[in-house]
């Protein structure tokens, strides 16, 4: 594999997606635990989730926008195929994003009447559960491979289309649903592990520890389910994950990260657990990416084949380099203020 500008940008898209999952994913997971809050400390659980999210969720969410922008700038055919074929799940996902973000803020700043707050809390929690499933379904559809064949190269509005086979079947599959559940489980897992660190020294820590362990178990079960479903649904990804030359080492590092995370949770070493869980999720994402390589969008669009003209790619890299110089120090500052200082 040679690192051309197109490959570099595809890599950056994956990095942005990884950050989205690690940060914004955990914000969705927070909503899941809000929904499942229970026991004597139910209200405290919700409060700590809300405090953890408030200062960072908007920034976390911008990673998704970066992914989208890079796709349409640098891989325009990939972008246009995805937005055509996955119109329905993407729209549903957007609905979820809108409802979740606004419900969260309406709850925090809204009326102090309990009934209204509870109502917004519900909307926030349910949208946090539904949205990751649609995100996962889109990812599943991409891994399985989508194409827009009947869309003519020279444009014109095609009139009669077989609606179901073009716009529903590509994403509404058991495999897609499995990946959706996988996303939900991973997000919840990350959130629970992060929250153990956030609740250092309070009884809530035990609550989130239990939740993290359950979520880890769910991830494990669903991962096998998805692998089994990929047998017929996404043969390319499955073949690579089972037989590729890098497959074995990859499974080993992912496995090691998972074992460390669980062991650290078990022995209550939460900071280690947090690092290991993040590593585990990162490996899973990059495993998917590697399994697809050199395809950005199977079955036909490769990274090089779908890339925009060289000048655009080079400028995009410059813009990314300049942006990174602003972004990373700012992000570090944000997280230092809200995540590294002890709660007052």
């Amino acid at each position, binding site marked *: 594999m040679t690192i051309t500008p197109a490959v570099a940008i595809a890599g950056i898209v994956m990095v942005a997606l990884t950050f989205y999952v690690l940060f914004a994913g955990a914000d969705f997971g927070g909503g899941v635990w809000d929904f499942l809050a229970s026991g004597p400390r139910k209200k405290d659980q919700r409060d700590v989730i809300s405090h953890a999210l*408030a*200062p960072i969720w*908007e*920034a976390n*969410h*911008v990673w*998704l*926008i*970066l992914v*989208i*922008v*890079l796709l*349409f*700038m*640098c891989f*325009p*055919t990939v*972008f*246009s195929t995805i*937005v*055509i074929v996955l119109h329905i799940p993407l*729209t549903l996902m*957007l*609905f979820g*994003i*809108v409802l979740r*973000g*606004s419900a969260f*803020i*309406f709850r*925090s*700043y*809204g009326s102090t009447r309990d009934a209204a707050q509870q109502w917004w809390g519900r909307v926030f929690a349910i949208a946090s559960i539904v949205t990751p499933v649609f995100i996962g379904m889109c990812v599943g559809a991409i891994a399985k491979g989508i194409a827009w064949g*009947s*869309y003519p190269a020279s*444009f*014109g*509005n095609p009139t009669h*289309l077989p*609606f179901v086979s*073009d*716009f529903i079947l590509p994403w509404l599959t058991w495999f897609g649903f499995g990946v959706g559940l996988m996303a939900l489980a991973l997000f919840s897992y990350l959130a629970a592990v992060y929250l153990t660190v956030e609740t250092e020294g309070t009884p809530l820590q035990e609550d989130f520890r239990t939740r993290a362990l359950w979520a880890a178990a769910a991830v494990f079960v669903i991962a096998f389910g998805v692998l089994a479903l990929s047998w017929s649904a996404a043969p390319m990804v499955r073949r690579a994950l089972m037989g590729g030359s890098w497959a074995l080492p990859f499974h080993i590092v992912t496995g090691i990260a998972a074992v460390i995370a669980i062991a650290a949770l078990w022995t209550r070493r939460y900071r280690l657990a947090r690092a290991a869980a993040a590593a585990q999720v990162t490996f899973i994402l990059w495993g998917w990416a590697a399994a697809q390589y050199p395809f950005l969008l199977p079955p036909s669009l490769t990274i090089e084949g779908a890339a*925009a*003209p060289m*000048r*655009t790619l080079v400028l*995009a890299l410059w*813009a*990314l380099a*300049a*942006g990174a110089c*602003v*972004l990373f120090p*700012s992000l570090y*500052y*944000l997280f230092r*203020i*809200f995540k590294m*200082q002890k709660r*007052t």
Partner: protein
Amino acid sequence: MPDILAARSQMGMSLAFHIIFAVIGIGLPALMVIAEYRWRRTGDAVYLELAKRWSRGAAILFAVGAVSGTVLSFELGLLWPEFMKQAGPIIGMPFSLEGFAFFTEAIFLGIYLYGWDRISARAHVIAGIVVAVSGAVSGIFVVIANAWMNTPRGFTLVDGRFTNIDPLAAMMTPAAFPQTLHMTLAAYAATGFAVAGIHAAMLLRDPKNAFHRHAFAIAILVGAPAALIQPLSGDISARYVAAQQPVKLASMEGDFVTMRGAPLRIGGIPNEDEGRTNYSIEIPKGLSFLATHDVNAEIKGLNDFPRDVWPPVAIVHIAFQVMVALGSFMALVSLLVLVMLWRKRDVTSMRWLMTAIVLAAPMGFICIEAGWTVTEVGRQPWVIYGILRTADAVTPMPGLIVPFLAFTTLYIFLGVIVVWLLYKQVMRSPSERDLLSMQAGTA
């Protein structure tokens, strides 16, 4: 409803919704920081209360701005995949720079809103300034992308395909400067007047209230200068439109017949079939002068162009008239306010002027919606002016009326709630006693 119409309506509706929050996202941080800065300088706790209330408002408005903006980034593709496929590599540049501006804005907004007790006073004010600046910068980048749709540059067209593309040249497109200037000023004018108008209304009832006096003073000082120069900036815009998009100019003016020394039409209703604009007041040679600064210049009328490149003339003309009429009123009010301030008069005691400011409160936002209608509807039938027709860019996905209605319902619902929350959170005015105890608290 045909799919193309549903797609256009959904795009227009989403943008019309987002722009309100985006504009406040540019203007309100400026007000908030000025209030905080005043508090740090004077120690007057009323300013602190103001900064805190405004930032509570900002938190709500930014969240809705962020989610509706996310919807837009997807909608560009969901509704116009062919447009994005072709234009993405050319105008992706301002969008990606905008992405980093969003990051900066969202990060420092988090720091500003939740960091009152966690960072130093100085760092807090700086965080607020960063929010204000990056908000303006994100607006500028996205408007550059839109400017390219009006005056596409930076490529060679071979068989209807873009080749030899140069994203930097695309950003230097002739519409970029007029549009970004006009839009940025619009954001300050609209936010400044809206906030000033609300507090002016309160002051008419309760003239001594220090909270409203402070708020009013800050807001009008942001809004009035911007609104005062807005007609000049609008003139720059009009001249670029005259040079680059003669069909749009003719529609704005309701001008069907080409002539030298064309009159400026005020008001009136264009009738496309009769080919004339009825009931308007005409100022001789006015249009030739305004569009080119030469009273005898020739202005092309719509009849010189084939009907299939006309935009919906009446909509464009009426929207333009609304913007200019309300914009002129705002500029006049601003002029009076600034003259009074310069002569050291107490504006808040002039009931007639205060009433005019209350009237002007919604006008900036109306101008913005009207102005964008001029720009976007006036560009029809093109999505990329002269190159790609909107009808050829739309997604093949059928049934687009469903997402259009769904998003419309969702946005109406959100809009109602936001207004209700702001009303409860930000506008409930503190009583005289609250204010005294506030001031006593820090003194």
